[in-house]
């Protein structure tokens, strides 16, 4: 495999992981603008573990995810008391605090960045991305996935149906943080070097944009969004800035034409059950 192709696929795999990290809370109705912060926690924690304790990245990266999850759980309880715009802003603040704190954390290099000795290649990264994808897909085939959507659609009624709304929100947020942490760990161990500036609000925003672009109502959405935005700019080449310009412009236009994202839950059900939905339409008409 050429180095170029490997590079693109690595980016794709990492972006897919990030997209699912943002997707879980969004599916429960919470906009997390601090995904980059959790990715930073996971990235730095796993890099520290593999560098100083000589742990294998295969162990260090999941542990980094756990660390990010613990931070997520710790802040979810107070932060999720806020909602709507307030929650989005609180997570934004959180991400910036994490980034700024790392700049001051000398054990991991502070502003100079942190070199990572262990190195992982595409197969490992792809395996992690696949694992995360399968996990989220399985999760959405359980009552958990239904409950998350129910909480998103109507908190009040979900509560009256006996769903513990807060617990589901905290679970979705925490699980999203774990996945973000894994994404950060993958990044750190592939690029052999991390710096706080990478985990900025731009990263959080881009990740959220993948998900909204792909569609928030189904587990395919984040995959699609991450894929389109990793592969499309590669096809068009051009410099990095023009790719971002294109990325933003496409997104703005798509949101105007199709605010629900590229793919919706209803479409997937239609694809999966072509026949039954065809007969439905006749009856409903």
């Amino acid at each position, binding site marked *: 495999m050429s180095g170029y192709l490997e590079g693109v696929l690595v980016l794709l795999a990492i972006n897919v992981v990030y997209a699912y990290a943002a997707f879980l809370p969004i599916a429960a109705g919470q906009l997390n603008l601090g995904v980059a912060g959790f990715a930073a926690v996971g990235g730095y924690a796993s890099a520290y573990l593999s560098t100083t304790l000589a742990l294998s990245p295969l162990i260090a990266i999941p542990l980094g995810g756990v660390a990010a999850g613990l931070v997520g759980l710790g802040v979810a309880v107070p932060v999720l008391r806020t909602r709507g715009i307030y929650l989005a802003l609180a997570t934004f603040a959180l991400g910036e605090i994490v980034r700024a704190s790392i700049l001051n954390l000398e054990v991991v290099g502070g502003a100079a960045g942190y070199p990572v000795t262990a190195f992982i290649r595409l197969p490992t990264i792809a395996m992690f991305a696949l694992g995360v994808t399968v996990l989220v897909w*399985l999760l959405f*085939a*359980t*009552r958990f996935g*239904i409950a998350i959507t*129910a909480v998103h*659609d109507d908190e009040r009624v979900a509560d*009256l149906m006996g769903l513990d*709304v807060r617990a589901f929100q905290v679970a979705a947020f925490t699980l999203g943080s774990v996945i973000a942490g894994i994404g950060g760990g993958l990044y750190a161990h592939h690029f052999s070097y991390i710096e706080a500036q990478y985990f900025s609000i731009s990263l959080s925003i881009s990740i959220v944009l993948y998900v909204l672009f792909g569609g928030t109502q189904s587990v395919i959405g984040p995959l699609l969004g991450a894929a389109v935005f990793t592969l499309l700019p590669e096809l068009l080449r051009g410099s990095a800035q023009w790719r971002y310009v294109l990325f933003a412009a496409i997104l703005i236009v798509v949101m105007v034409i199709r605010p629900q994202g590229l793919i919706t839950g209803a479409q997937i059900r239609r694809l999966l059950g072509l026949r039954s939905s065809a*007969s439905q339409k006749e009856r409903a008409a």
Partner: protein
Amino acid sequence: MSATDPILTLDNVSKHFGGLAVVENLSFAVRRGACTGLIGPNGAGKTTVFNLITGVYPIDTGRIVLDGVDIAKIPSRRRIHHGVARNFQNIRLMPHLSTLENVLVGQHCRNGGLFGVLQPVSLVPGNRWREEARAALEEAGLAAYERATVGSLPYGLQKRIELVRALMAKPRLLLLDEPAAGLNPAETDALRERITAICRDRGITLLVVEHDMHFVGALCADVIVLNFGRKIAEGTPEHVREDALVREAYLGADAMEPRYAS
């Protein structure tokens, strides 16, 4: 237990929104196994009574006793575990879920532990809960819409799905808020027969809010009449119909007269 012991008792319940008293010193009892109607002009507070029973709003004063338990002290989420389920006057299904998934949500109170939550209900074809939900849809004549996203279904179907969802909780007490609103006479009759059969077969007690007096008269043995948040009459449908205060409330409110089949 005798048929006259109440399953639900409201005892001096009051609720104010700001300065507005919406329910005032309301007391009534619902007989176990019977169908009780809760009627009154628009804005009388009927939906609010349902909201107080299910815990959408906390009550200001009083007690709400379900089978000896004061459920007013229980958080709203736990009340369905005590056997109260309801529908909503303005349908409130989860618009992004399919019909089947909405019905699965109705089972949550019976299968909501960690193990239940992680069961792959929509993956394994023969899953017990999934089959139960499908059977319920089948019985309600809704099998064809199983996969449809409810947001896209017509109003009448959504109302029927909401009823199936409420029944999935296996309630002892079912609260129905205007189940016949928006239905034509034939549909109303079909609905009445279905409700009667369900409550009889499963031993469910029914408390129903409805403006259609013909429907209430045919379905309910007891009727409670509210006006401005107070109880102004109760008794059999015939008795209530003759009551002077009731007639005055409906005529005075001029918003609506009790609709007899015309």
